[in-house]
């Protein structure tokens, strides 16, 4: 076969399109800069920015599973918030058992206690995810209406079970010694815990990116999001892949729950459904199914919520809705619309 018959040709992406690709990424620094101008005081700005990033990272952790699950199987889990709440309560119980470790002056013991709490929470919510997927979600694949209803029902039951196990009162979840207090940088006071949250969130995002780009299972997930049927035709069981992703997403929601609990220091059975509002906003902003979009959306929401909470506390939640509306006016499918073959 001659080389000329099939002249190698690669379509050049126009500059404008390339720019449009990168544009959403730029929104985060732009928002931070606007925040600096609006707030005026660099020290307060730094405090708020770190707080915003920390909040964004936690929302990202909780939202990432939801968005990938949607991308892969077209399933949206309105009960995702239940995993957040259960994670927080399991974390609470484990930290209470390890009270000796959390009160110890040793930073190492403190962090080990948190790590054990996180692992326990992830294990429980991961298994809960398994049960949820098999019992609640599987019978209604492909039926959006029933999915919304049934997963909402799952949320109600899960919240009620939290009441049964942990009682109806809100619980106080205190941070271990090492994570209390703030670091003072110049005039800015930055809570240590927020730095930890940013660290964990960033590590997770990078890890997730690595898995999606460089491992076979990551490739399968990305391919499955685009065309699940073709992945099946190549001999892979998408259902099983989906179950793994669903469990991972649930475990991540559990992780997010522990982190959110330590951040707010109080936990209630309803915390999941409250956070879900932010999670949904982030997922919509990012584009349903897109991990990168979800990350950027989470950062934007976190920063904006903290800036407005400082500048005009009453409109904090409204501002995130306004952001969502603005993004959707610009890109009706979110920042990074996911390519679907069908």
């Amino acid at each position, binding site marked *: 076969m001659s080389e000329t018959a099939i002249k190698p040709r690669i379509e050049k992406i126009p500059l404008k399109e390339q720019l449009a690709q990168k544009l959403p990424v730029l929104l985060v620094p732009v928002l931070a800069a606007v925040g600096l101008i609006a707030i005026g005081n660099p020290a307060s700005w730094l405090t708020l920015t770190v707080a915003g990033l920390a909040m964004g990272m936690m929302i990202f952790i909780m939202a990432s599973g939801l968005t990938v699950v*949607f991308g892969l199987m077209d399933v*949206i889990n*309105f009960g995702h918030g239940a995993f957040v709440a259960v994670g927080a309560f399991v974390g609470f119980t484990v930290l209470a058992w390890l009270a000796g470790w959390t009160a110890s002056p040793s930073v190492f013991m403190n962090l080990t206690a948190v790590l054990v709490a996180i692992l326990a929470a992830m294990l429980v919510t991961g298994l809960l995810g398994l049960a949820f997927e098999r019992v*609640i979600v599987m*019978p*209604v694949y492909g039926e*959006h*209406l*029933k*999915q*919304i*209803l*049934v997963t*909402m*029902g*799952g949320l*109600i*039951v899960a919240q*009620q*079970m939290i*009441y*049964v196990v942990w009682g*109806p009162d809100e619980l106080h979840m205190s941070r271990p010694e090492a994570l209390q207090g703030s670091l003072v940088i110049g005039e800015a006071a930055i809570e240590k815990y927020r730095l930890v949250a940013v660290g964990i969130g960033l590590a997770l995002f990078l890890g997730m990116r690595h898995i999606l780009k460089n491992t076979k299972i990551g490739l399968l997930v990305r391919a499955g999001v685009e065309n699940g049927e073709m992945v099946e035709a190549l001999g892979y069981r998408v259902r099983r892949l989906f179950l793994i992703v669903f469990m991972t997403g649930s475990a991540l929601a559990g992780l997010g729950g522990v982190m959110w609990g330590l951040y707010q220091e109080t936990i209630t059975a309803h915390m999941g*459904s*409250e956070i*879900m*509002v932010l999670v*949904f*906003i982030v*997922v*919509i902003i990012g584009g*349903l199914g897109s991990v990168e979009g979800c990350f950027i959306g989470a950062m934007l929401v976190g920063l904006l919520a903290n800036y407005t909470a400082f500048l005009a506390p*009453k409109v904090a*939640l*409204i501002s*995130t*809705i306004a952001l*969502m*509306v603005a993004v*959707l006016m610009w890109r*009706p*499918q979110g920042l990074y619309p996911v390519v679907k073959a069908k």
Partner: protein
Amino acid sequence: MLTRLLSGDTPRSGLLTALLLIVLISLAFAPFLFPGTKSLETAARICIFIVLVASYDLLLGYAGIVSFAHTMFFGIGAYGTALALSTTGPSYGALVWGTAAGAGVAALFALAIGLFSLRVKAIFFAMVTLAVASAFAVLVSQMSWLTGGEDGLNYKIPRELTPAFKLIKAKVFDVSINGKILAYYLVFFAAVILFLVMLRIVNSPFGRTLKAVRDNAFRAEAIGYRVVWYRTTATVLSAVMAALAGSLLAIWLRYTGPATTLSMEIMIDILLMVVIGGMGTLYGAVLGATLFILAQTYLHYLMGVAAEATSAVPVVSTLVAPERWLLWLGVLFILSVYFFPTGIVGRLRAGRA
């Protein structure tokens, strides 16, 4: 005549007809059949929720759209009436324009949300409405200068609708005919009329097209129906009905606050009532609302007894504690979505066939 009143959409099941008649007669004569403040409160609540749940069914059952903003429209109606009454005094004029304003604002909101988010996917609409409704609830509780914040608004309604007003001196069946009973009948007849209007809507050509769109949006679009337009209109109609139900609540309670109108709990209750009663039947709303509210009011007591009886068994007693009744409803809800998506009404109709 009767068939025409029902727009030709009869219950189509003997047992269902009987149940509906029992509900209708009980509500129509509630002040005399079940004297006492608590039972009258319950009866009025049932009337209001029948309208609210039926209006949600219009959206969920007939248009196949899941919205989490239904309590927002309910609240807009209630606050419309409440604000009119509390700012300009207890006149019928204020009552009417407040109600109309509430319905108008609800329609505008619904139009905006519908045009904005119904283009994409049902799932998208569900998420957007969830976010918008919770932001609205927060906004209302924060604008305390206008809405009274978390405490809500207390206001006077026209004197003829309050217990202080006596219509006739004599008692009828041992019940004194006061303004409260007049208010009840206002709620009752308004509910009956609104329900019949909705029955008319779903049985009109518009309603039938809506169902066609629900069953196969792609095909309906291909035939030439403007799917977004139909869905948005359904959203607006359902929002207006919900707002009117909210106004009825505002009149009945003489109080409007976030907890009685806007809370997520009420949204969940509505969802449970529609699904358990029967989606896409409207009559399901009647049965769903009646059973749910009766259970909410009286089941607590029964479960209390059960919890008492099992108090020796630790886990079981917490599971059947009266506060946990939502747990069992949640389970029932999931089971009904799986096994009888047409709810009680669907079951009754199938049983006949």
